[in-house]
């Protein structure tokens, strides 16, 4: 295990991540966490924004290898801009998804990045596309991606309803990302959000201490025949500290 200590130093920067986009009647809500990690051991950036604006009303979320994702995104921004100037009108969301897919598919053996493309256009309104690793494009009502997404498939299936309002969508997206960050060690930090409607795009940031809280029963232990259940509400750091101090109190009894 000689490489154990050097693990993250020789690992590529990856956005082990959680990304999500949800469509509602008037627009789309796009969200992501903010952690970039190396080798699953080192957080190389805790404030990275994975929600990238590729055009006025089209956004895309990155996942996978950060280098690959940035390269593809930058190339797509350039190409989409050019396409839009040629057509003389704002580009379709489908065009943006197509351009990203072209890169992903053409270089599928070299690249390792997945995307969610979402936005609003005049022809078909709000749309969400998933452009996955090998270059498949699928349009969906909502979609999740990244390593943290596995933990929230059940939550998404249970809680999503078509026809939500903008506020419900924002809550739904924030809750989903928070739950994923709580379970996935390579997702974390703050929640970056973007809302795209006919009138334009708006970004939001929800810092760690303002994230929704899901109470957790941390410990069930028995001291001297007395069951101690520690149920804590609060962010992860606060909960852990409170649990530790409670343990110290019980020992003295």
């Amino acid at each position, binding site marked *: 295990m000689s490489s154990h200590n050097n693990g993250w130093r020789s690992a590529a920067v990856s956005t082990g991540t959680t990304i999500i986009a949800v469509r509602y009647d008037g627009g789309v809500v796009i969200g992501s966490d903010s952690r970039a990690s190396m080798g699953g051991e080192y957080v190389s950036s805790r404030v990275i924004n994975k929600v990238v604006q590729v055009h006025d009303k089209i956004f895309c979320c990155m996942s996978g290898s950060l280098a690959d994702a940035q390269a593809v995104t930058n190339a797509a921004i350039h190409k989409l801009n050019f396409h839009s100037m040629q057509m003389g009108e704002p580009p379709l969301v489908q065009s943006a998804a197509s351009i990203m897919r072209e890169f992903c598919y053409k270089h599928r053996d070299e690249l390792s990045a997945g995307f969610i493309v979402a936005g609003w256009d005049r022809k078909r309104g709000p749309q969400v596309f998933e452009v996955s690793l090998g270059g498949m494009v699928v349009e969906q009502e909502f979609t999740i991606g990244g390593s943290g997404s596995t*933990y*929230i*498939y*059940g*939550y*998404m*299936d*249970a809680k999503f309803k078509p026809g939500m309002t903008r506020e419900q969508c924002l809550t739904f997206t924030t809750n989903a990302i928070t739950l994923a960050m709580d379970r996935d060690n390579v997702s974390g930090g703050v929640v970056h959000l973007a809302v795209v409607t006919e009138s334009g795009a708006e970004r939001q940031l929800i810092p760690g201490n303002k994230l929704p809280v899901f109470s957790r029963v941390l410990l*069930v232990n028995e001291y001297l025949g007395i069951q101690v259940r520690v149920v804590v509400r609060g962010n992860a750091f606060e909960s852990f500290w409170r649990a530790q101090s409670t343990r110290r109190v019980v020992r003295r009894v």
Partner: protein
Amino acid sequence: MAASMMLNPAHNIYNPHDLAADWFGQEVSTGTTIMAVEYDGGVVIGADSRTTTGAYIANRVTDKLTYIHERIYCCRSGSAADTQAIADAVTYQLGFHSIELDEAPLVQTAANLFKEMCYRYREELMAGIIVAGWDKRRGGQVYTVPMGGMLVRQPVSVGGSGSSYIYGYMDSNYKSGMSKEECLRFTGEALSLAMERDGSSGGVARLAAISEEGVERRVILGNQLPKFFSA
């Protein structure tokens, strides 16, 4: 692939493994979803019913909720052979221990027996087990013994390949102080969501509620499973 075939033209042009289906050489696994929840007065346990050998479903009505003692059950995930062997061994040991004690064994004892075996033979075994039951001393308890042989008591625990997909649902929907019916519904919904997303989980949802009164078993058939939005 084309490039590598050109390099050794003298080899057989067919792969002997093509003569048999892909799943012939695969180990039988309970790629699965299992879950257990404590409530005041007992526990609710649940599992799906699919056993796979590669891509073939060897048994679509498996019972993964295994009897260990009158009020102690275990949920099995991982290799079907390994978990059956461990469960049989623990059932024997616990039965013997209970006769020696002349009273019902503790759930903690059963959990420790599982842990001893899973930890000692950790290199050879592939077994993730949730032990749950009721005893007079501590009421309903859930102990999880994942691969590697750790033992920890939790109020709610999920396991198996399908469990990844329901962590978010479990974190957001679990509340302490649920009643037996609420726990049964919570477990049924969680299993249904996992079975929908995980290819190695499916079939029917088997549930059991263990309390002082005894064990009450239920089956939710495929078409009766709670339905959710699927994109």
